[in-house]
């Protein structure tokens, strides 16, 4: 058993880099396997304070070499649950870095550590001498940790084996994190990072609604706000919703008013209409409402052509960007397309009528399966007329009215003729005469370009005229 050595430990060493000239041993990093794992473990399966080394100890390793490395921390305590594992694991970076002569970078299966020659000079010969104080640091910082045991792996075959186990744990954790929804959290995060370009933009980042720029998830907001709560990412205590379906919260309205300099007093998360989210400057995609079909189109930054409304991405982005709230246009991040709350107040995917092909391909895993074939791309429709024909043909929900998924409420009426003109009346009369009154809705669509509802509208007008009985 190696003697205990008094290491130099202080928060001031966090972020210390070990240069190649000062390197004793390099662990993990781009050239070797490396991982860290914290496991919530029942109290009776932890030998508190113990450090076990599987493989060569640090004193036996040649100076200047890079080796595979794994560390598994078993933690136990009355309050310790699975969900705390990753929070404990993320503290590794800081706490290990507190040791002078030790550098720790990155996380999970990407860790990269360097032990400096200064620790060798101090007389360190065993991992135990480095990791025993780490247990004390953890217990001091996180008093809910009652017991902690560490195993260090340096044997290459053993590192590989344990890394495979760790990967399964990370995967299960990620699945749980992906299942996190707005209902599950008490805090959303605001972001004003792009106010330099978009002075009235007040972004809200929630588990179900990542930022417009695509760069910031709820987890990023949490990490940044923790480091600097006064910085550009800040917490918003969400409290109860005013309107859960549209995503209206008093706390968000207040935040929007304050951060937009009084420009906006209401801002709703999951809708296109009536006080939508502000659009910054460089959102990844834009949504645009087309009143002619009562549906929404979506285009990404890489789509250079004109959308069915005749406007390219750049023109629409120019009109919408700058932190404005523009009803009928909305900047959105790619990740939002995978959200169960995607425009839920407006009917979600049932309201989407057109997408640029590249975007549709990119987010296809997020699109409701029954809508996949009903959303046109530039191959199907280049203008409003061809879009109308496409939507009629595929029987898109907007044609006869959208019933939104979230509460089964019918929110649109479907297409109606603004005016039943004589020209339409004549066409319908000719059709009825030709078919001898045997009406087939498919031929109504293909020959007359009318929906069933519109056809009935004309028939009713003809009845009112006394032409039909």
């Amino acid at each position, binding site marked *: 058993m190696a003697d205990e050595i008094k290491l130099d430990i202080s928060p001031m060493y966090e*972020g*210390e*880099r070990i*240069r*190649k*000239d000062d390197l004793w041993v390099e662990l993990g*990093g*781009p050239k070797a396997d490396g991982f860290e794992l914290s496991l919530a473990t029942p109290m009776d399966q932890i030998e508190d304070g113990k450090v076990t080394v599987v493989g060569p100890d640090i004193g036996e390793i040649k100076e200047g070499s890079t080796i595979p490395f794994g560390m598994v921390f078993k933690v136990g305590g009355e309050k310790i649950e699975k969900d705390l594992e*990753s929070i404990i694991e*993320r503290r590794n*970076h800081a706490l290990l870095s507190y040791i002078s002569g030790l550098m720790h*970078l*990155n*996380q*999970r299966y*990407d860790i*990269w550590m360097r032990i400096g020659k200064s620790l060798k000079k101090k007389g360190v010969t065993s991992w135990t001498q480095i990791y025993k104080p780490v247990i004390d640091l953890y217990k001091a910082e996180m008093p809910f940790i009652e017991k902690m045991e560490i195993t260090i792996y340096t044997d290459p075959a053993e590192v590989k084996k344990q890394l495979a186990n760790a990967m399964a744990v*990370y995967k299960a*954790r*990620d699945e749980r*994190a*992906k299942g*996190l929804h707005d209902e599950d959290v008490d805090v959303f995060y605001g972001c004003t*990072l*792009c106010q*330099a*370009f978009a002075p009235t933009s007040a972004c809200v980042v929630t588990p179900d609604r990542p*930022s417009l*720029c*695509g*760069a*910031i*998830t709820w*987890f*990023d907001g949490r*990490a*940044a706000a923790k*480091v600097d709560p006064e910085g*550009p990412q800040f917490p918003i205590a969400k409290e109860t919703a005013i309107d859960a379906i549209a995503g209206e919260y008093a706390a968000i309205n207040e935040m929007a008013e304050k951060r937009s300099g009084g420009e906006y007093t209401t801002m709703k998360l999951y809708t296109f209409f009536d006080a939508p989210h502000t659009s*910054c*400057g*460089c*959102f*990844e995609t834009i949504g645009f409402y087309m009143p002619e079909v009562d549906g929404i189109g979506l285009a990404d*930054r890489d789509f250079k052509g004109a959308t069915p409304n005749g406007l390219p991405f750049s023109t629409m982005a120019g009109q919408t960007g700058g932190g404005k709230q523009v009803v009928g246009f909305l900047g959105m991040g*790619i*990740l939002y397309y995978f959200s169960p709350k995607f425009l839920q107040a407006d009917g979600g995917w049932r309201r989407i009528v057109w997408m640029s092909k590249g975007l549709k391909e990119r987010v296809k895993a997020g699109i409701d399966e029954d809508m996949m074939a009903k959303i046109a791309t530039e191959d199907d429709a280049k203008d409003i007329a061809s879009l109308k024909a496409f939507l009629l043909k595929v029987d898109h929900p907007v044609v006869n009215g959208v019933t939104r998924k979230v509460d089964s409420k019918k929110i649109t009426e479907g297409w109606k003729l603004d005016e039943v003109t004589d020209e339409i009346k004549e066409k319908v009369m000719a059709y009825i005469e030709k078919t001898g009154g045997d009406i087939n809705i498919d031929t109504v669509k293909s020959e007359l370009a009318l929906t069933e509802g519109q056809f009935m509208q004309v028939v009713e007008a003809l009845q009112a005229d006394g032409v039909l009985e």
Partner: protein
Amino acid sequence: MGKVIAVTGKGGTGKTAVTAMLIRYLVKNSGKKYRILAIDADPDANLADALGVKVQKTIGDMREYMQQSRYTTPPDTDKQRLFESKLFEILVEEEGYDLLVMGKPEGSGCYCFVNNLLRGIMDKTVNDYDLVIIDTPAGLEHLSRKTIPDLDILIAVTDESRRGLTTAERIRDLAREIELSYKSLFVIVNKVTSERKAAVLETASGLGLKVIGTIPYDERLAKFDLVGDPLMGLPDDSPAVKEMVQVVGALGL
């Protein structure tokens, strides 16, 4: 906190050669007194070549990596930490100094978040060194974006022409415009012929510019540059190298 020195100047003035010679001199003669970080922030020049270093990847590459990986990283990834590690990966660790290359500018899309991370990391990185020497184009691009922290010393390298010296004056104005803070602005005049030296110094003082070095036209330096040999191999007795004694003294190193 280390001392941050930026060397700037128009193309053709020998700015990158001067930067490389300064680094070379400090590595050879300061007895490892300083931990030195060299930053190549000029996409048109090549400090790495002048130092004789092969560079695989740049900060620009890693910034793109961060942009692309945002769709695939696990949900609870700490992106600052990931980026920090990626930047450490591309740090070139040489005998006596480290080198970072800024590389290509950003593409379309939003770089607010990733540049903000970069600023934080660069601030921390700079703190890890005693001396940071930056080769930057006359437009001071990375400095205006604040991805490189504030300066202690700004050095303008010019040739001996009057126009060269007025460029130094313009750099001073630009620095003011982009609110770049620095403590001192110095001028190094490169490729000076002996008969013009007095006139050059007079012009500079007329413009209120402080000249800390006049590097004589050096046949061997020109040859090294021409065949693309790294300047690290320049002999100690070449006139250009000798002038570095003056420069380093004036910089207080």
